[in-house]
């Protein structure tokens, strides 16, 4: 049963990767990152269940905490960029482009 969860987690992670690479709206790209974090959480909890140890759930819990902090700062950056450039597209924030 565990490998079913791992496969589902892998599919969700791959979908998140594709979305992050193809979508141009910064907020949607950010949502794709959240989907990838959630997929890894599912794998952690599934492995925790398989191995009979709660450490995987602790790891998933810490991932959630870090994701919360990351979302706060990331969305603040998006709002700041939108204020100065009047655009939420990630193609427009290209001043640091090599």
């Amino acid at each position, binding site marked *: 049963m565990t490998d079913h969860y791992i496969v589902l987690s892998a599919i969700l992670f791959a979908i998140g990767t594709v979305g992050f690479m193809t979508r141009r709206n910064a907020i949607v790209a950010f949502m794709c990152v*959240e989907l990838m974090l959630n997929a890894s959480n599912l794998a952690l909890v599934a492995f925790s269940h398989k*191995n009979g140890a709660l450490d995987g759930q*602790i790891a998933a819990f810490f991932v959630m905490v870090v994701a919360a902090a990351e979302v706060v*700062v990331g969305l603040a950056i998006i709002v700041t960029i939108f204020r100065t450039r009047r655009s939420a597209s990630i193609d427009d924030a290209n001043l640091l482009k090599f």
Partner: protein
Amino acid sequence: MGAAVAFWLLAPVMVLGALGMILARKPVHSALCLATVMISLAVQYAALDAPFLFAVQIIVYTGAILMLFLFVLMLVGVDAADSLVETIRGQRPLAVLAGVGFGLLLVLAVGRAVVGPDIGLAADNQAYGGNVQGLANLIFTKYVIAFEATSALLITAAVGAMVLAHRERLTKRPTQGDLVGERMRRYAETGQHPGPLPTPGVYARHNAVDTPAMLPDGSLSELSVSATLRRRSGQPDRRDLVRPIQRTVAELQADGELPQVAKPGAALTRRADLLPPEDRQRSAHRGDTPGPGAEPDGGTE
């Protein structure tokens, strides 16, 4: 058994939700699809003997993080669509190809790496009287350093968000007198009407806010409809709203019950009469210029 039922019921929903998230045209639809995936994920946690993470997933992820996303969507603009300009040629097909290959690699390699029996968490969850107690035991003994570091991370994130969102006011805040002076100066220079925008029209059959008001001369005032609604409804033809009124006026005039005037409503004050003569012709039909009732920039902080 229950876990298998939950898995096979929710796994297709989750994959479809994730696909809908990356395929939806509007960001709000993406956010709702993501909410579906996250709630389904919470149920999977419950099926995997993780009741604490089930609650945290719903409260923190679906409740707090996703609502934050929706708030920012509201600030940044719901109608901000994706740009279709390709900065790197052929990037999208290549990205999809790479993503599918990556997914296949993960599924075939990691998905088959599980060996050994599924032990389950029944014993661990009962060791300290419950799942939450077991997690607390681990957090405050084995992982206490990481837990303390988390507090520093959260404080940093909160301060960082405040610093990023804060904007220093470089000019003096305009007073009520400044705003009125600016409005009257604009009226003197460009003839823009200093009063508020007209309200939307109310008719016997339509009282929706996207119904434009009818001016006394029988024309429709596009200024009376909010710019967002005008853009969303795609400029429908609203002239059929005033046609019955014009027909009735014409019939009454034919019967002699109304005085014959050159134009219906010409004796009344038209909006265009409030403008300087050279602007009248132009502004009588304008639809897109920002209205005089709109707050000047900087007035709202």
